[in-house]
């Protein structure tokens, strides 16, 4: 089976947790060996230990966390939640807590996961089912836009939000300064982050949604059109409900992508507690308070717990979205 994006949404992949019978049972038994199992268990441990070490360190008192290895918890089992309360609200060491950034991450990621999916589903419907000249051209152009790394867009977009754009004398994006100041209206708001994440997500989201919507049965649309339903009605009553599984998969992946993003956040949010997400805060305290292992680890665990909950509870969706979205950039 290929990982071709076309197939990922419509065709559910084998559940990563369950298994499909492909090699006959007898053959598998013959091939399985304690040696292979041992190797897998060894790699599993190797892969899990670093994260486990982070969790243990975040639960140890400052003294133990900074002056002994986390594995010594076996002989010195002191544990505390005080690191979490200090890093959440701020304390004597790190004055500003992580809590505002944690909420910023939600405030950024929820709209930034929904906007591109809604807009992409609309565009995909138009390309697939509203007949017009140039539909194929638009589809392939959008597909080709995936090659543009977001690094190409950062500087011009930042300039657009801060100073506007004009083509010679013709303004193509107005200079939206606060009245009487040099400062853009967008500074200190989530708006540039929502817009930037939506823009960067669109090529892939449109491509994947098109592949899904394109495969819906033609009779469905023809019957609706014959009954006199407008495109808008068809979209709301037919396309949206039928697309929910595809939208969910891509939206979950997009949510995690935005939650984990640092580059877009640093560019468009700066580091202020008003809008910067948790990744920006973590990168910042890693540089400034790197020696405060008990607090850094607690902060990092707060940041990764949300993706981990999403990952373990929605693994099936996550895998589909990931396979589809892994070429995103």
């Amino acid at each position, binding site marked *: *089976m*290929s990982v071709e994006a076309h197939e990922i949404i419509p065709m559910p992949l*084998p559940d*990563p*947790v369950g*298994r499909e019978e*492909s*090699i006959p049972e007898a053959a*598998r038994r013959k091939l399985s060996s304690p040696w*292979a199992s041992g*190797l*897998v268990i060894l*790699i*599993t441990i190797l892969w899990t230990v*670093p*994260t486990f*070490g982070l969790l243990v360190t975040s639960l140890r008192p400052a003294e133990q966390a*900074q002056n002994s290895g986390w594995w010594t918890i076996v002989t010195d089992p002191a544990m505390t939640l005080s690191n979490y309360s200090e890093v*959440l609200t701020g304390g004597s060491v790190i004055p500003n807590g992580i*809590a*505002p950034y944690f*909420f910023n991450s*939600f405030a*950024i990621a*929820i709209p930034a996961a929904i906007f591109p999916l809604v*807009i992409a589903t*609309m565009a995909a419907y*138009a390309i697939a089912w509203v007949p*017009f000249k140039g539909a194929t051209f638009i589809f392939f152009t959008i597909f080709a*836009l995936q*090659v543009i*790394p977001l*690094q*190409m*867009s*950062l*500087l*011009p*977009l930042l300039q*657009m939000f801060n100073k506007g754009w004009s083509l010679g004398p013709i303004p*193509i*994006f107005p200079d939206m300064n606060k009245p009487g100041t040099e400062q853009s209206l967008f500074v200190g708001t989530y708006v540039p982050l*929502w817009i930037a994440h*939506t*823009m960067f997500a669109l*090529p892939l989201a449109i491509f994947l949604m098109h592949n899904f919507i394109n495969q819906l049965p033609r009779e469905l649309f023809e019957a609706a059109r014959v009954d006199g339903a407008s*495109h*808008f009605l068809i979209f*709301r009553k037919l396309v949206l409900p039928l697309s929910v599984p595809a939208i969910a998969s891509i939206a979950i992946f997009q949510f995690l992508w935005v939650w*984990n993003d*640092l580059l877009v956040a640093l560019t468009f949010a700066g580091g202020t507690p008003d809008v910067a997400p948790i*990744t920006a805060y973590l990168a910042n305290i*890693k540089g400034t308070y790197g020696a405060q292992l008990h607090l850094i680890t607690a902060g990092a665990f707060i*940041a990764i717990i949300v*993706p*981990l909950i999403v*990952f373990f509870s929605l693994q099936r969706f996550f895998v589909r979205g990931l396979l589809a979205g*892994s*070429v995103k*950039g």
Partner: protein
Amino acid sequence: MGELASGLVKIGTGLAAVAIVLGLLLLIFFIGARAKGRAQGPVAIIVFLGPAVLLLLYGLIVPAFRTTVGSFQNANGKNFVGFANYSWIFTAPGNSTFLINTVLWIVLVPLISTGIGLMLALLLDRMRRESISKSLIFMPMAISFVGAGIIWGLVYEYRDPSQVQVGLLSQVAMWLGIDNPPNWILWQPMNSFLLMIIMIWIQVGFAMVVLSAAIKAIPGDVVEAAELDGAIGWKLFSRVTIPMIRGTLIVVLTTIMIAVLKIFDIVRTMTNGNFGTQVVANEMYAQAFVQFDVGRGSALAVVLFVAVIPLIAYNVTQLRKERTIR
């Protein structure tokens, strides 16, 4: 509790923005639905496609054009300087560090990640109870690069050998009889490889899951027929399994390569590009947003863009080919 209240306000802001945008769209839908007869098609196209086209135009097409122009301009974008920024990238003393590192990253990380991922996929295919292992190895994929940087920063934590060790790697080295483990993050040129391990840690799960799906999709009768012909073990692997999943293997390799090419967060979090660990994507960020040299930053972005094109083009043709074969 003030924190919680202001936090809820923030989430409320996000939800309100969603409600406003969806409400606006619904309103436009109702207006659009009033179009009658021949106007229906064009109105629908404008309403459905308009937002996406505008966002792509402003978000990708115009910026890509502007960045390309900017790459031929000086630091503040006032004068044209020809290819000066590009010749700076490839000839300035000191820049060979990030160029060589980037090449090492895009060669080693995809190969090693895919290699380990393939091995795991093969081993797991023979095991009955694979679920827990698979989930745990796949888990790093959900963790941000910054989070991964902190997780591995703890592993690489350095303490003087005379003191109690805090970092796992130093402790393991001492248990193995290396009495004087180096300060890992400062240990050139090995520190670049230690940063690559973080990326490998993240990408192995991706390779494993995708390749595992490909291996499971090999028809059972193909395997049985090969076994009847005496193909077992290495022969089965090299003559049957690998050719059957070749396309997927290449997609996994190139996909990781594209991700690695743009790697920024890990290097920035771990070393900020110091100690000989710089890579192109982080240099681009540093030039554009720390040095405020728009010309060099843009030129580095264009280099990334040009480097990504053949990978994606190859990926697409490979997928096309595979599609027509089936």
